[in-house]
Every structure is written in structure tokens, then in C-alpha cells.
């Protein structure tokens, strides 16, 4: 008895466990889709994280005045009780002004170790040399810029003379400073040093003058000597700047491709140094600007005011990333480090730094989707170029061309697939005998199983060169596809009118197969001579010379074919099932009332199956949007915004497949690729859900019969 109840208990327990397991499996499915969505969101959300000012830090001067202006991280250099003096530093070199003498130190520290500020003992800095100065120097005019082994230093004397020094600071080079003096240099001018191009840029009187500072004597540039600024400026015409008269503040734009100027009315102007033209609209600054500058590797600029106001912005976009007042700032000049990691200010007895949290500056909805007026461009652009730094430019992150390319590929695929799928579904589901249908349907559905990488390979490598040669043939194919059946129909009708002995159920499929093959062969052979005769040469050349239409070898026509093959079977399958499922009694009634077979199909069967038609279209588009391998191999992958059937495109899926393996985890490109995957997910989710709703409506309709 006990034994039996134990068995019963075990059986019941097992039943419970299985029930639990099965229910858990059901829940897991929901969890999975939620997990996918949640994880994509989790990775994407930091992009919306705002810009903020983080912790501030104060570095005591330890006897030396430290001003780490162009540094990735600030320095304190020196020891307690060391000789006082102004010190300016970049990441490689430091310059100290002390007792009318400039000392140039090499810092001997790896750039990579500069992430956290720490004092470097003076002993570790190697003195490269000293430069004797001839007179008093205005301390806050001391500037420096270094690039590889070239160091430029500038300062002004109280009587209005600008001095520029150029020193080679490499280990092998001898310490031989070259010195340019510009007498009567106007006080309301701004100057910027550019060591990478060995240039002095002077902004004044509404003009920009670029003065070359060569190492060897060159005829075009000015020699390291004394020059009268007046005389020099008359010889150098200079480019006309958008700001008339004197500016309020002048600074570099991102990556030094542009110049940023703030006029007396606090309006920001951008001047393109590559094209020597002003770009973009002007925009008002929120406070009186005293300094302006930019990061070196990202499109981020800052302005600062006298009372510690700072603002960060993307110059190609409108609006500010951040407007704030730095706590504890004093009256001195505020600068942003080259990597954008911190604001810095030299104060009487310390160097203050404020961390800047700004990991994803160019990811506002506007900058991702709307045109941006980038540097070196004549107008606003929508461009995807995330590897800008690798090709010597700033990266451009516009998702619009990718979304455009995605829809373009899907829609050209639909152009091919829709007639094919609908036609095939109608004939298979309504006109074919059940026996034949049960063979034809699975065969067509085999196309769905085709690995898309194979379709892509065939399209990209076999069809693409062929398409370029037989463009006219391919463009005529849809015409042939429609006209051959119509001609056969006419022929059949004529034969039947002549002799009623002709069967009214001819072997359509066989006749069509023969006719298509014949038409294909004839057209293929005729198309090259025809093309040569019509267009004197190839059609793609003719398109270019007559209409300026650019022909890419991997283009939308190609995608139409390959994608069409890939999405036809799923649409066919849904539609065919729906047509076949419409009860025969419905169309039999219509036929009995004298309607032709096509009339009963069009007026009775198709309306009943119409929700499936919509469902099939949506599923087809969703499939086309997400297709990867075909577009990867056959689109050419250029992010163009050109709807032309002869041009290339780049889809979201292909971009993800190409770029994500190389993107560093957590970086801006990584997160943007996750965002585009999320967009793809959302789009297909939407399309699939609507399709599902329509399909359920269909089931409900049939439920009535």
C-alpha cells in the first residue's frame, strides 16, 4: 500500500516537474525576445548620455608655475623650492620662462601613461637647451605647439613685438632655435601656431594671413629675421574672413581643419582652412567668449568666458552639448585638453582641472539623421564614414544613408519579387491540379532554403560583369516576362477560334518553358548588336554621356534580382497557402453564375485571401530589410543617397557585418552599430507584427465557413 502511494506520489511529482519545465520553456521564448531587445537597448542607451562636468582637481604649483595647455593630462613639474617661473607644456615638451630665459625640457614620458595627472620630478625631465630672451615678456602671451620633432614657441614683448621660435626637439637634432621677430605687431590681432605645417596664422582686420616658417631658406617664405609687420602684411594679401574688424576670440576648429571665430556680438563663425571659405550658418554664443578651441580627434569645440562659464558644442551641428559654470574658476584663461578629457585653468598658486564626461558627442538625433555641415564641404551632408581618422579626416556618423540603402535594397528586391510571387502563388494555388501543386509548391519553396551567401556570390561575381555587358538585355527581361505569356495567350486564342479541336487546357507550363527559353536565347544574342546600334557603344556609357547617370558595376538592378530570388519564396508560400485555403465552394458558385475562371479568382478568391497578400508584402519587405549576405556581396557597399537603379548602396546589415568585428567594444562606432541593429530589429518587428495581425484576421475569416 505504502509502496503504491509512493509510486503515485512520484508520478504526480514527475507530472508537476514536467509541467513546470514546459511552462518555463514557454516563458523562455518571451524572455529571449525581451532579452534581445533589452540588451540592444542597454548597449545603445549610453549614446544618449548627456555631457557633464565631473570632479575637479587642484594641483599645487610646487614652486613652479605650471600651465599644461595642450596636454592630454596636466602636469606638475618641479620640486618644492625650485625656481619659480611660468611653465608651458605639451605632452612631449615643457617650456619654462624664468629670469628672462626660456628652458626647453623633454618630458621623457610615454604619451600612453598620461591618463592620470601626476607630478613628474624635475630630474626626469631632460633639459634640451636654454634660449636667452632680449627683454621683458608678457607672461600670458606665451604659447607653444609641437608636432613630432618640431616645437614652435611664441611670445610678445610689452612694446608690441611678436616673436616666434622654432626648435627641433628630436634626440638627434642639435638645439638650434630659429627666431622670427615681427615688430609693430597689432595688439588686437590673434595668432595661432601650427607646428605640423610649420605655420603662423594671424587673424586681424578681417583677414587671415598664413605665414610659413621653414627650416631651410626658401624663396616663398620669410626668413628667420626681423620683419616689420606693417610691411609684411602689405605683401601678404591673406584670405577674407567672415568677421569684419577685430574678433572677440579665435581658435582652432576640430582637427585644425577649420578656424572658429567669435565676433563682437558673440556670434560664432566657421572658416574652412582647406577651401578658404566660411561654412555653415553663424550661431550665437550664450556668454561673452574669452577663449575658444577644439579637440584634435573628435568634432567637439568649447568656448569659455571670464567668469568660468564654459560651453561644449559640435561645430557642424546646432545647439550645445553642455553649458555650465566651472566651480572654483578664477579669471584666467580656460582651455580644453586635446582629447577633450578635461578643462584646465592656471590659477595663481595652482593648476585647476575639471573632468569632462563627454564620450558620445556626435550622437544626437539631429546629428545622426539630419544633414551636417562638415569641414571642407560646400554644403550640409549626410555621410557615414566612421573610420575617418584612419583616412586622415574626422569621422562622420549619419545613419540616414544606411537606412536609405536598406530600404532601397529591399524595395528593388520587392520590385522583382512581388509580380513573381503573386503570379506563381495564384497559378499554383488556384489553377494547378492538386497533384501538380504538391510537386511545384515544395520545389519553389526550395529557393527559400538557398544559402543567401551563394545567391550573393552569384550576383556579385558572375552576374555583375555580365550585367554591365548585357544591360539592355536585362532591362528588357521584365517586358519579355510579361509579353511572352500574352503572346502565347493570343496564339492559343487564335488557334481555338480557327479550330475548336484545340484543347482549352493546353500544357501551359511546358509551352511557356519552351517560349521563355527561346525568347531568352534570341534576345540574348540580339541584345549586344542592338545595344551597339542604339547607343553606338555600351548602354552604361550612353547613360553616362547623355544623362550623367553613373553606372556602378554592383547596383540596385543586381540587388533586385538576387534579393528578389531570396524573398520570392516566403511571399509565395504565405500567399499560396491563403489562396489554396479559400474554400472551392466559393469559386464554384461564381463559375456557376457564368464568370470566367479569372473573374472568379479576381472577384471572389483574391478578396478572401487579401489579408494574406498584405501580410506577404510586409513579410517580404521585412525579409529584404534584414538580408545581409546578398547585399554584402552585391551592393558595392558605398553609402550613397542615390535612388538610381544603376548606383551602389550600403545597407545597415552589411555595415554591421563589415564594421562590427573591427569596432572596439564600448566605442562610439560599436554603439552606433548596435543602434542600427536596433533600428533594423524595430523595423522588422513592426512589419512582422502587422503581418501577423493580418494573418490572424485571415484565419478568422475562414473560421466563418
Amino acid at each position, binding site marked *: 500500500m505504502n509502496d503504491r502511494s509512493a509510486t503515485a506520489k512520484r*508520478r504526480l511529482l*514527475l*507530472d508537476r516537474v*514536467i509541467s513546470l*519545465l*514546459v*511552462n518555463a*520553456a*514557454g516563458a523562455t*521564448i518571451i524572455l*529571449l525576445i525581451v532579452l534581445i531587445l533589452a540588451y*540592444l537597448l542597454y*548597449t545603445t542607451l549610453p549614446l544618449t548620455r548627456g555631457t557633464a562636468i565631473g570632479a575637479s582637481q587642484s594641483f599645487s604649483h610646487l614652486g613652479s608655475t605650471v600651465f599644461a595647455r595642450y596636454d592630454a593630462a596636466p602636469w606638475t613639474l618641479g620640486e618644492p623650492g625650485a625656481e619659480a617661473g611660468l611653465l608651458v607644456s605639451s605632452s612631449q615638451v615643457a617650456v619654462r620662462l624664468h629670469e628672462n630665459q626660456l628652458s626647453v625640457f623633454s618630458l621623457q614620458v610615454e604619451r600612453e601613461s598620461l591618463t592620470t595627472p601626476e607630478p613628474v620630478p624635475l630630474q626626469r625631465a631632460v633639459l634640451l637647451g636654454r634660449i636667452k630672451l632680449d627683454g621683458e615678456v608678457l607672461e600670458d602671451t606665451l604659447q607653444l605647439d609641437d608636432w613630432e620633432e618640431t616645437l614652435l614657441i611664441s611670445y610678445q614683448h610689452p612694446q608690441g613685438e611678436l616673436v616666434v621660435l622654432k626648435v627641433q626637439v628630436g634626440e638627434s637634432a642639435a638645439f638650434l632655435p630659429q627666431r622670427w621677430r615681427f615688430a609693430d605687431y597689432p595688439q588686437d590681432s590673434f595668432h595661432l601656431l601650427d607646428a605640423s605645417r610649420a605655420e603662423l596664422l594671424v587673424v586681424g582686420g578681417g583677414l587671415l594671413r598664413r605665414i610659413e616658417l621653414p627650416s631651410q631658406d626658401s624663396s616663398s617664405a620669410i626668413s628667420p629675421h626681423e620683419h616689420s609687420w606693417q610691411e609684411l602684411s602689405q605683401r601678404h594679401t591673406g584670405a577674407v574672413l567672415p568677421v569684419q574688424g577685430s574678433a572677440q576670440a579665435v581658435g582652432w576648429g576640430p582637427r585644425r581643419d577649420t578656424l572658429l571665430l567669435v565676433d563682437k556680438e558673440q556670434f560664432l563663425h566657421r572658416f574652412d582652412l582647406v577651401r578658404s571659405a566660411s561654412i555653415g550658418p553663424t550661431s550665437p554664443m550664450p556668454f561673452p567668449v574669452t577663449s575658444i578651441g577644439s579637440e584634435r580627434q573628435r568634432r567637439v569645440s568649447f568656448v569659455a568666458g571670464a567668469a568660468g562659464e564654459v560651453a561644449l558644442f559640435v561645430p557642424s551641428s546646432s545647439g550645445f552639448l553642455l553649458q555650465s559654470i566651472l566651480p572654483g574658476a578664477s579669471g584666467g584663461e580656460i582651455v580644453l585638453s586635446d582629447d577633450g578629457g578635461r578643462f584646465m585653468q592656471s590659477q595663481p598658486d595652482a593648476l585647476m582641472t575639471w573632468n569632462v564626461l563627454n564620450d558620445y558627442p556626435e550622437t544626437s538625433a539631429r546629428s545622426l539623421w539630419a544633414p551636417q555641415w562638415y569641414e571642407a564641404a560646400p554644403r550640409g551632408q549626410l555621410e557615414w564614414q566612421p573610420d575617418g581618422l584612419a583616412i586622415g579626416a574626422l569621422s562622420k556618423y549619419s545613419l540616414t544613408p544606411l537606412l536609405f540603402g536598406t530600404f532601397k535594397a529591399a524595395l528593388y528586391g520587392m520590385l522583382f519579387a512581388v509580380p513573381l510571387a503573386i*503570379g*506563381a502563388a495564384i*497559378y*499554383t494555388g488556384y*489553377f494547378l491540379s492538386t497533384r501538380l501543386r504538391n510537386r511545384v509548391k515544395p*520545389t*519553389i519553396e*526550395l*529557393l527559400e*532554403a538557398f*544559402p*543567401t*551567401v*551563394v545567391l*550573393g556570390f*552569384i550576383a556579385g561575381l*558572375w552576374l555583375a560583369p555580365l550585367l*554591365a*555587358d548585357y544591360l539592355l538585355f536585362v532591362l528588357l527581361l521584365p517586358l519579355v516576362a510579361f509579353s511572352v*505569356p*500574352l503572346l502565347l*495567350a493570343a496564339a492559343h486564342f487564335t488557334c481555338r477560334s480557327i479550330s475548336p479541336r484545340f484543347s482549352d487546357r493546353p500544357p*501551359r*507550363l511546358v509551352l*511557356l*518553358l519552351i517560349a*521563355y527559353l527561346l525568347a531568352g536565347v534570341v534576345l540574348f544574342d540580339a541584345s549586344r548588336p542592338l545595344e551597339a546600334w542604339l547607343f553606338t*557603344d*555600351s548602354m552604361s556609357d550612353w547613360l553616362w554621356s547623355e544623362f550623367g547617370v553613373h553606372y556602378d558595376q554592383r547596383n540596385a538592378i543586381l540587388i533586385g534580382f538576387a534579393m528578389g530570388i531570396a524573398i*520570392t519564396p516566403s511571399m509565395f508560400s504565405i500567399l499560396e497557402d491563403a489562396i489554396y485555403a479559400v474554400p472551392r465552394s466559393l469559386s464554384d458558385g461564381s463559375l456557376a453564375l457564368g464568370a*470566367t*475562371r*479569372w473573374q472568379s479568382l479576381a472577384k471572389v478568391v483574391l478578396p478572401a485571401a487579401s489579408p494574406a497578400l498584405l501580410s506577404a508584402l510586409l513579410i517580404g519587405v521585412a525579409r529584404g530589410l534584414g*538580408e*545581409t*549576405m546578398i547585399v*554584402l*556581396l552585391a551592393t558595392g557597399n558605398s553609402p550613397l543617397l542615390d535612388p538610381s537603379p544603376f548606383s551602389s548602396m550600403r545597407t545597415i*546589415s552589411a555595415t*554591421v*557585418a563589415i564594421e*562590427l568585428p573591427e569596432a572596439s*567594444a564600448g566605442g562610439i562606432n560599436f554603439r552606433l*552599430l548596435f543602434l542600427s541593429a536596433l533600428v533594423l530589429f524595430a523595423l522588422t*518587428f513592426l512589419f*512582422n507584427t502587422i503581418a*501577423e495581425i493580418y494573418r490572424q484576421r485571415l484565419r478568422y475569416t475562414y473560421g466563418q465557413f
Partner: protein
Amino acid sequence: MASSRSAELKTAPLLAGARRAEPLVWASAGAVVLALLLLAAVLLLLASNSFRYFWPQPLVYLESDQLGPSGSLGIVLGRDTGRRAQNAQLLLLRGAEEFFQSPIIWLDEDRIRSRQQPKDAFAVERADRGMVFGFIEALTVIGEQRVLSNGSPSQVLNAVQNAREEVSRLSIETREASFYSIRLANGQLVDLPLADVVSVHLPNSMNRVEKLNHFAAGVWRFLSEAPRQTNVQGGVLPAIVGTVTLVLLMAIIVAPLGVLAAVYLSEYAQSGILTRLVRIAVNNLAGVPSIVYGVFGLGFFVYAVGGSIDSVFFADKLPAPTLGTPGLLWAALTMAILTLPVVIVATEEGLARVPKNLREGSLALGATRAETLWRVVLPSAAPAVLTGLILAIARATGEVAPLILVGVAKYAPGLPVSGEFPFVHFDRQFMHLGFYIYDLGFQSPQIDTVEGLVYATALLLVGIVLLLNVAAVVLRGRLREAFAGEEIFR
């Protein structure tokens, strides 16, 4: 009103005639024919190009103004029938890439002076650096010279083949003293190592049987060897092993979850909001683009899960990742999610076909729900489960996009399965047939020389996938037939 009516009357017979001709029926039949033609055309293209790759092609000796006084010997890969005021051109594979600027050359057809197929021209396939075409004149085996100039071509061939086998048994040092002297088409006589020879044949004097043998040997080497020369030559065995391991591992993961979820939907679920949510989830899982699964797999499995496992269990190896990097396990898991809806839908369909009276009978005899499921329902639906698994495997075999992100490698000599513990290396990257096609077709600098290999791989992949699908269709048909009778009694 009246005039329009008379117009209608006039056009009516015409329209009626046009209707009776049923042009749209013909047009829709045309769509069926076109769809079938497309399938046939793609298969034919793959098959014919693969055949060309394995079947010995004639060696052609061409003399042309473009080549100077001497001619060129090689295989005609293709022909471009002139465009943009250019003449028709032949694409010749002349091999011996270390002696010529490029292993392929385009030749204008109208500048070709003569064209012959010399009977004594040899084609030598080498393990390294591609084919060599020419006339073998001498043979040196371990420093001992065997002059062959008086032998017939087939005697030379035998001698070379024997010497090759001799050399393959030698130690590496003595191999270096064994080489063959081959005269290239430009008259140059070069000595090449015998140990490097994979196969040698006389394509222009082979009979059908010899050609068939060569063809079979080529196919076998393609299936059984590893790729050589950065994938542009050799076989695809690692890719086959990688693909099979991946899909089997995936099947092991997806089968229990997929079947349980289908059982939930078909047997356990009450029609409520939860069930509808599950259905929506299954439908959407099926519709999510495969690349999105790849993105999720890379972010969640590789970086989040793999990274966490690394920091807990393999902390001593960090920063070199063990599981926090794309690999077999993550690829299989990603593929399992991707194919989950396939298994669920197929299994559910099978479960729905199991007659209700079977279940009721079992329950009436006092079996619990679980016992009914295990003893009655699942065995009856087993073919459907199998169908679902086969379809899932077919889908995973053909899918490449997610693998690019979660674990496939361009070249991975270490197979994911080996005799060493733990036998299946979950952390290893692996090769995959589909990715191999993508990589060769997309990244190859000289596509003309590898096209044949890509076609052969594509045919293999398509063959496997289509075979699996046909198997699933047949199996599904069997299941339908099995219960076709029972439904009548319902």
C-alpha cells in the same frame, strides 16, 4: 449614357474574346515557370562551373603579338566578347606565378597567330604557388639525374609520378635534392622541387577514363584536404568539419528548448494573454534578421557572458580572452536562438496532427499528463520533431551573417574537434563553408583564379542544404500520411 452604352456594345465582343483567351492565367503560369527556371538556372550554373573546375581542361598553346616571339601555355578560363570598342579577349591561366608577372593574362583574340593543343604539355599542381604548365624534360631524384627526353609523354608522366611517391617517403633534407626540370612556354627551363607536386597530368592526351579518374581524385582532394596558399587552393575539409560541428552542437542546444516550447503551445497553454505573447514572440523570433542575432550574440554571449566567465574562471589568462572572444560555443548558442522558431513551428504542427483520441485514451487509462506526453504524444510526433531539427540544421548550415560576428574564422587550422581533451573545443574559432565562399569571393585579390573553388564550395553547400530540405519535406509528408486515416474518425 446612350453613346457610352453603344461603345460598350461595340467593344464587348472584343473584351469577351480577350477574357476567354485568359491572358492573366497565362501570365501567372509564366511566373511559375520563371520561378522554376530561376532555381534550375542557379543549380545549373553552380554545377557546370564546379564541373569545369574539376574536369581536366585542355592546355592551349597560344602565339600572339602581345606575347612577343614565344607563346603562352595555359587553360582558357573565360572569354569576353568585346565591349567599348574593344575586341574579344581570352582570359588565359598560365600559372607559374613566380616566373610571370601574373598567373592570368588577357589576350586579344584577333592578335592570336596560332592556337594548338600540344599532346606533351604537362599540368602540374603544386602544394604551394599554384599550377605550372610546361614540358617536363628531366628529373633528378636524390641528386641522380634521369634524362627523359627520349621517352614518350606518358612514360615521362609515369616516371614523374613514381619519383613523386619516392620523394614523399624521403626525409626533408634529401627531398631538396629531388626536382624536375620543366620548360615553360617562354622557353625558360626551370627546376622545381618534386616534393611540392600534388598531382601531375597530361590533359591533352588523356582519355575519358583517365579524365574521370582525375576528376574523382580532384573531388576527393577537395573534400578531404585542408586549404593551402591562404585558402586559394586545396580542399575544404576544415570548413566541412567546422560547419558540421557547429550545426550538431546547435541542434543539441535547440532541440530540448524548441520541443518543450512547442509542447507548451500545443498541449499546456491555456488560451490567454501569456500564450498569445509566446506566439507573437515565436513569430517575431522567426522574423528578426539574422544579422541582429549576430549582433546580440557578439554583445551578450561573447562580451557579457564570455567576458564574465573569463574574469571569474580564467582570470589568470587575462587580458588574453578565453571565452570572451568569438568561438564555437557562442556561435552554436546564437544559431540555436536563430533556429528556435523553426523547431517550434514544425514540432507544433506535428503535435497538432496527433489525433485527440490518442491523448484522451491515454488519460482515460489513468496516465498523467506527463506520461501521456512522453509515452503517446511525443512518439507519434517524433517525425515532426525530426523534421524541425533537419530544417533547423539546414537553416544554420546556410546562414553566414551572424557567424561573421560570433566565431567564424578565415583560416583555422586547428579543427574544433580533436583527440585532445575536451575533444570539442568550445573556445576555438572555426571555418565554415558559407563564410569560406564569402571570404574567397569578396576578399580575394584575384577572383579569376579562385572562382572554380568558390563554385565547387557553393555547390557543396547548396547540395547539403537542399538535401536536408528535401529530407524534411519527405519526412513531413510521411507524418501527414500516417495520421491521414485517423482524422476521418474524429
